[in-house]
């Protein structure tokens, strides 16, 4: 039973800290909506171009907003010594890093989805794109948190960690980006998007199995 209680303890603590620091949660969202609404000023506002670039902009900006908030998964704990205490706890480190990843997704990944659906309207995208946007984000944002956590653990506490983290993480997001925006685009053209969703689900399962292990290994190296 203590395995579940340890998982819940870390999850509850991180959620509590996140909600007590609401600014840290709101800022990436505001940033997301801000950069996503910059593009119409650049390409003009006629509906056809917005329709073409809409899904791509909404998705790329979601990816950037998620990357922006990755640093907070381990950085605060690394600075104040809590990470060492998590490392020395009786429960396996993989379990505790998974709890931290889930907390990050609930605080920073999930809120991106309503913002993205609002941006759908901003880009005057047809209603047919709402459902694909929702499902691709539901499958994609956990991958941001999972892969992001592994690499945030690798670069925790390094000089220039933020930019280095983005440099390491963005190439790994390309497959998710390709299939997600491809799915939304195909859905708007009335094609079936089962293939893309299956692939996104496969990427999610792969990240779910591998990335907590990689994060635990990376933390063990960084603390060592």
């Amino acid at each position, binding site marked *: 039973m203590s395995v579940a209680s340890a998982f819940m303890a870390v999850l509850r603590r991180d959620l509590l800290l996140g909600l007590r620091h609401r600014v840290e949660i709101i800022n990436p969202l505001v940033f997301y909506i801000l950069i996503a609404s910059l593009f119409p000023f650049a390409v003009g506002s006629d509906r056809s171009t917005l329709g073409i670039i809409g899904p791509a902009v909404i998705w790329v900006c979601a990816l950037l907003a998620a990357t922006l908030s990755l640093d907070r998964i381990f950085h605060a704990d690394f600075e104040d010594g809590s990470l060492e205490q998590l490392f020395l706890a009786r429960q396996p480190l993989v379990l505790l890093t998974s709890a931290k990843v889930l907390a990050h997704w609930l605080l920073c990944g999930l809120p991106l989805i309503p913002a993205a659906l609002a941006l759908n309207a901003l880009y005057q995208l047809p209603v047919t794109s709402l459902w694909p946007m929702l499902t691709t984000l539901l499958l994609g944002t956990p991958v941001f948190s999972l*892969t992001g956590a*592994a*690499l945030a653990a*690798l*670069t925790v506490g*390094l*000089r*220039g*960690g933020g930019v*280095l983290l983005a*440099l*390491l993480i*963005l*190439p*790994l997001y*390309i*497959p998710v980006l*390709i*299939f997600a925006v*491809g799915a939304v685009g195909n859905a708007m053209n009335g094609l079936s998007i089962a293939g893309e969703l299956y*692939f996104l689900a496969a*990427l999610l399962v*792969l990240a779910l199995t*591998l990335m907590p292990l*990689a994060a635990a*290994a*990376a933390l063990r*190296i*960084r603390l*060592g």
Partner: protein
Amino acid sequence: MLESLYKYAAPQNFYQLSRRLTPWLAGAAALLLLAGLAGALWFAPPDYQQGESFRIIYVHVPSAWMSLFVYVVLAAAGITGLVWKVKVADALARASAPIGAAFTFLALATGSLWGKPMWGAWWVWDARLTSELILLFLYVGYIALQGAIEDRRMAARAGAVLAVIGLINIPIIHYSVEWWSTLHQGPTVTRFDAPAIHISMLIPLLIMALGFKLYYAANVLVRMRCELLEAERNSAWVRQLGS
């Protein structure tokens, strides 16, 4: 056999071995590259369609092969260093990164030099070239991570984790880019690989590929010696080397 191999896992023995091997490897690489060059520029017939510019394949394809080969070596060496704590394997991983990045850049540069006469543009969003570009980002990420961590052993182990994550993602990226390029570009035939290549064209290609491999082996041994000299600065065998 393993014991004698294990002997060379110790930095000191490896250093002597690598000093003995390098001249032979470098000499063989030079010979092969010259032979390959002669074959590529002289003996191999021009392509019936692309004419002389097809000769760029003899440099583009081997360096593309090498860019992937070196990344696999880098990841394998990283794991060996991480799991069995073999210092020489860490040195191999750190030394391979710049060479792999050089090969990847070379593949991209020769690819664009080939694309210009054929498709009129310095950059073509072809699936193979795009995967190569992403591989370059992975290399740059690895080298940036090595630079960001002072402690040599921690840098090597962090690099190993990154290389493994990268290695797992390479086939995924490759498949996604393939799917993406057919989605947007349609099936135009971008002949970057060598489908039905005539034997007289294949031989120089294989000679060049082997030459590149030996060149990598010689070069990585020299870079590994530099790594070991710096990493083992305070150990006795390095001090003896000086006197």
